[in-house]
């Protein structure tokens, strides 16, 4: 299994790790195949932009790298724009993933979407 230099960089030095206390949105996804789990927390500012994104992940090198990557991509982005980041976008940004890992540990986009949906729900309910 060979990881790109960028993947190596991101699992070695993951960015934006940890928990946001009182987040505006939070999403957790899990992979039934190998049991990895990923949670993404977001903070949204008044311009509807993602001011902070953090993650925690149980998973392989690729799972950590994709989590880390998407937080970098998403921070500063418009929420609606970030919602459309795909698994492929993340993989591309990392200069590719080993084929077997492409669908398995690349859950970051799903987790971010879940977090944004959670944010929209909260907003609708007037919780924010």
């Amino acid at each position, binding site marked *: 299994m060979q990881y790109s230099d960028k993947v190596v960089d991101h*699992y070695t030095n*993951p960015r934006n*790790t940890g928990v946001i206390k009182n987040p505006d949105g939070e999403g957790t996804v899990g992979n039934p*195949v*190998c049991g990895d789990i990923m949670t993404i927390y977001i903070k949204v500012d008044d311009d509807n932009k993602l001011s902070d994104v953090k993650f925690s992940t*149980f*998973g*392989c090198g690729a799972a950590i790298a994709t989590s880390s990557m998407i937080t970098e991509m998403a921070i500063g982005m418009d929420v609606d724009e970030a919602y459309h980041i795909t698994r492929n976008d993340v993989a591309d940004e990392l200069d590719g993933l080993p084929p077997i890992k492409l669908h398995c540990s690349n859950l970051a986009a799903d987790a971010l979407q879940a977090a944004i949906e959670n944010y929209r729900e909260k907003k609708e309910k007037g919780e924010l």
Partner: protein
Amino acid sequence: MAHELIYMDNSATSPVDEEVLKEMLPYFNEKFGNASTLYRLGVDAKKALDKARQQVADLINADVDEITFTSGGTESDNMAIKGVALSEIQKATDKNPRNHIITTTIEHPAVLETCKFLEKFGFEVTYLPVDEDGLISLDDLENAIKESTILITIMHSNNEIGTIQPTKEIGEIARKHNVLFHSDAVQSAGKIPVDVKDQNIDILSLSGHKINGPKGIGAIYIKKGVRFEVFMHGGGQEKGLRSGTENMPGIVGLGKAAELARENLETRMQHNKEIRDALIEKVTSQIKDAYVNGSLEKRLPNNVHFRFSGIEGESLILRLDNEGIDGATGSACSTHDLKGSHVLAAIGVKPALSHGSLRLSIGPENSIDDVDYIVASIKKVVDYLRELSPLWDN
């Protein structure tokens, strides 16, 4: 890298010993003759072949003409099981089918996949379960034997968790019922005493690169008189049992590695045990929720196998690599097919926990002085990954 490399994956593969390599070198381009030829270069090759065969025989207390060289442990396992199966099937009749094989759920894939292959062709295979230490039950074994049983193939010790099976007793049961007994001793040979006579073994596999010998070479012991169908057909080398131009540097290297392993068996066992026990003691006392997989008593002296809750093995291995420590994991995420370790499943480790497993396998180059650094590094990495993990309650 934070530290000079500490290689602790010797059960996966090991570096070739300097002395071994020195013996091998002339056979690449000085004494490069073919052992089957007539001229002196060939005669020299033949002598070297015989010497190496004796060295390997001595390691496992076999007779010299009971040793055949193969391309590695995998070939020895394939040859052993297919050799018996195909030879016996020719003796079978409708009333006396001779198509049953007994093995365990924790064998190396070289054994398991060979058994599965034979199942496709009409063989019946019993996979004995193991207890939480990884040990089979001798009663289970004896109960599984029936009229049609031709072969028991049970590993001498396990490559993941290091559990040593009661080989001598298995062999006794096999003899009593007139069934052949093959033992995959790839992890045992050179690590603990292996004695085919005392341990009642009919066929045994071993591999060069697990004992600081070269890769691509192995050997099979076949007790005199055992009927055997050829696996590798051709020019009739190795008394017709294994064709193919002899891999002379490999054979000479395996011979030397076997000799060194035999001569240093006691000291190496002592050395390995000391490091093993220090690692177990310190890791389980210094790291929360750290457990040892496999038996503590019936365990290879060079094997340590931990599980840590809340983390995943591939990321553990990769971060340990950054600390200069090379180990292995049974995590599904580290494999080609995203299936977790069948051995950990067999001893009842839950998938979530088998994910966070770490095997450190010790070699002669490791030092007791490194233990504190290793333990501190594991602790650092485990703590870091747990902090990252949604499954760990910080």
